[in-house]
């Protein structure tokens, strides 16, 4: 089995030194994700201005895959519009679950998580932060637009 497909150097590096790690003061949205199978947890904070995601941060405890995924997600989402962010969520989700062919160009660096699809037990690790981000963005929208 090719472990290298899962633990690529960039993933190990983000695991060691995660970016945008910490709570976000003045966040406009926040959500918590939990993997009941392993007990891993992640919290994601977002700050949006109008339609734009300006900042995403995370905290939590988890494996290398979940930490690196959260870290690289925060970078990939910064500066995206809501619609672009949600489109990226779907692309990432399809890639790690192997559900549908993906647009590799749109995924950019996130392509390194493509190997996860071959490790069914690890798909949740890679997608945990993304689901929390989606919930945080939803909370943010609900908060702003109570209708």
């Amino acid at each position, binding site marked *: *089995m090719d*472990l290298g497909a899962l633990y690529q150097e960039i993933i190990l590096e983000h695991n060691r030194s995660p970016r945008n790690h910490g709570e976000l003061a003045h966040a406009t949205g926040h959500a918590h994700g939990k993997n009941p199978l392993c007990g*891993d947890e992640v919290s994601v904070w977002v700050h949006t201005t109008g339609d734009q995601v300006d900042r995403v941060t995370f905290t939590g405890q988890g494996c290398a*895959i979940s930490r690196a995924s959260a870290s690289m997600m925060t970078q990939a989402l910064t500066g995206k519009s809501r619609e672009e962010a949600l489109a990226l969520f779907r692309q990432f989700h399809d890639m790690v679950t192997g559900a549908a062919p993906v647009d590799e160009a749109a995924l950019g660096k996130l392509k390194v998580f493509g190997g996860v699809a071959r490790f069914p037990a690890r798909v949740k690790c890679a997608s945990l932060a993304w689901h929390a981000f989606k919930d945080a963005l939803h909370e943010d929208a609900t908060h702003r637009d109570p209708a």
Partner: protein
Amino acid sequence: MPPALAPSALLPATLREDFPILATMARGKPLVYLDNAATSQKPRQVIDALSRYYEAENANIHRGVHYLSERATLLYDETREAARRFINAASSREVIFTRGTTEAINLVAQGFGSAVLRPGDRILVSTLEHHSNIVPWQLACARSGAEMVEIPIHDDGSLDMEAFDRLLDARVKLVAVTWVSNALGTITPVAELVRRAHALQVPVLLDGAQAAPHIAVDVQAVGCDFFACSGHKMLGPTGVGLLYGTEQWLDRLPPYQGGGDMIETVTIAKSTWAPLPSKFEAGTPDIAAVVAFRAALDYLTRTGVAAIAAHEHELVALATERLAAIPGVRIIGTASPKAGVVSFTMDCAHPHDIGTILDSEGVAIRTGHHCAQPLMQRFAVPSTARASFYLYNTPDEVDALVRGVEKVRQLFA
């Protein structure tokens, strides 16, 4: 090829050949199965008994007058007698077949919730418990107004017996404690627990899921009021476990489920219950699993539970020593005695990653919270990596585990 050698001088030379699955190649490597606390592998004798049942013995039990029904009933009842002997219960009326430990504990908890517990009553459980010895009591407490109180543990994973003494009082209506921690392997002082609880007329339930595979169980010597275990963790099939309860208690508790086989007479208005053990065995059970469980009990008895325990003790000691020597490895649960389990964390890698890397070497361990979240909270870890051993494991397999952990360190440190 995996080693066909005897796991140790303590056990039969051809023992591994009895377990066909041990010849599996996993990820291109010989399978090293160290997830025995989750479920054990099955010897050919058990697999054959399952097939033979469906090929030659299958019928419903306690119902027909025909040949096959009588035969299946006999085999079913013989397993009950074999199980009685295995745990040394006084009577086979005190041995109830369930789906497993979880159902056995739920049976008692539901009965206590409706027939015993009152508002203000207390149930003591320990920090070591598996969720299946926590959640059923929470449900019983929610129905009855009783409350759960936790018996704490020391930093080495052993029960705090002084705290236990302080908690034992007239409010306590049951002590429900594990005999062997599934997450740490810690063996609790069950006879002493029972002695102290009984001094105040408090009954004791022992979760024996991890004890029965590894320790010679004598429920009368220990003196417990209830004992539960699962067939699949002790070489048997899934779908069968047992509840031991004293006749006094089983007579007092109401039926768990209603249905066929558990009644004496039924009218639309009212029913009366069958005597023990049928009162607690509604509906058609997993007859095949029960019949094949007999082969597992015979296998363990023939091999000798004491010899198995001695062999596992050697493996646990070897694995503990070698893992603890690796920089950054922390052994969780260091109290002795222990049975069958080494739980650990690494400072450079999360247990999930350890599990995946070991898996790539063909080594199967469990990673996660082991259905023991309060215990993980006690040690301030989200999860651990757990290697758990059984009679067929070998010192070579401990080597494979250690090599895998070294590989984790190379990748992550």
